[in-house]
């Protein structure tokens, strides 16, 4: 069942992105930035975690979850260390996405030749 919901919710978030491309005529950079900010704000109101429980990867795979997990890590650490935790905990939860992008980017640059 969670597979169906992840398909529907993930697809729906992508449609929102597509509408921002086509109707608002935003660049991909603007669209993705807005989606990330949206994810961060949704977590601030505690709305993103229920969505992850409900849709699984449908909520964790779109870029909105990047904003969500940044806030999540910051708040987690802030609970323990107060205000300074907001800075020290920022990448606590979301380290893997950026780490993977950097590592695989480097590996890709070593092994692959640019196309066209």
């Amino acid at each position, binding site marked *: 069942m969670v597979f169906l919901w992840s398909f529907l919710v993930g697809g729906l978030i992508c449609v929102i992105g597509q509408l921002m491309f086509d109707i608002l005529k935003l660049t991909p950079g603007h669209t993705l930035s807005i989606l990330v900010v949206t994810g*961060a704000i949704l977590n601030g109101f505690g709305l993103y975690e229920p969505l992850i429980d409900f849709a699984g990867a449908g909520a964790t795979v*779109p*870029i909105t979850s990047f904003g969500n997990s940044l806030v999540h890590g910051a708040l987690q650490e802030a609970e323990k260390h*107060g205000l300074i935790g907001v800075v020290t905990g920022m990448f606590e939860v979301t380290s893997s996405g950026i780490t993977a992008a950097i590592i695989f980017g*480097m590996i890709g640059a070593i092994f692959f030749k640019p196309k066209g």
Partner: protein
Amino acid sequence: MDKSPSTTKTQYKKLAQKKELKRPILKNCINAFFFGGLICTIGQGIATFYMYFFDFTEQTVGNPTTATLIFITMLLTGFGVYDHIAQFAGAGTAVPVTGFGNAVISAAIEHRSEGFVQGVGGNMFKLAGSVILFGVFSAFIVALIKTLLLEWGVI
């Protein structure tokens, strides 16, 4: 008697608007829905695998899933497949985390000819940098406000 530059500019704008191709919005949305949903379903498959064979929960499994998806993106980007899919999937491949990975990896591969320090290192986050900037900054603001409100006992 020549026209002022501002008139020609507005005229050009009008002409460009008239000649601009109408975007097939419905078709684009269906494609984005299908491919975006498909990537998330693949992600769910990977997540289920990690939850079943390793010690992850629904909330923590996003981390290894993201890394695995970016690894797959590297292969697809490197072999030039990702761009072909992205051409008709639109936001369906841009919005999932694979789009973030593709932006980083394709920039790294493309600028390799300029060397590893100036080229790969300097351009890796050329496209993805704004996502990180606005993600981190907005997360900082949101977390700051929430922490302050919690400490003051407002919420």
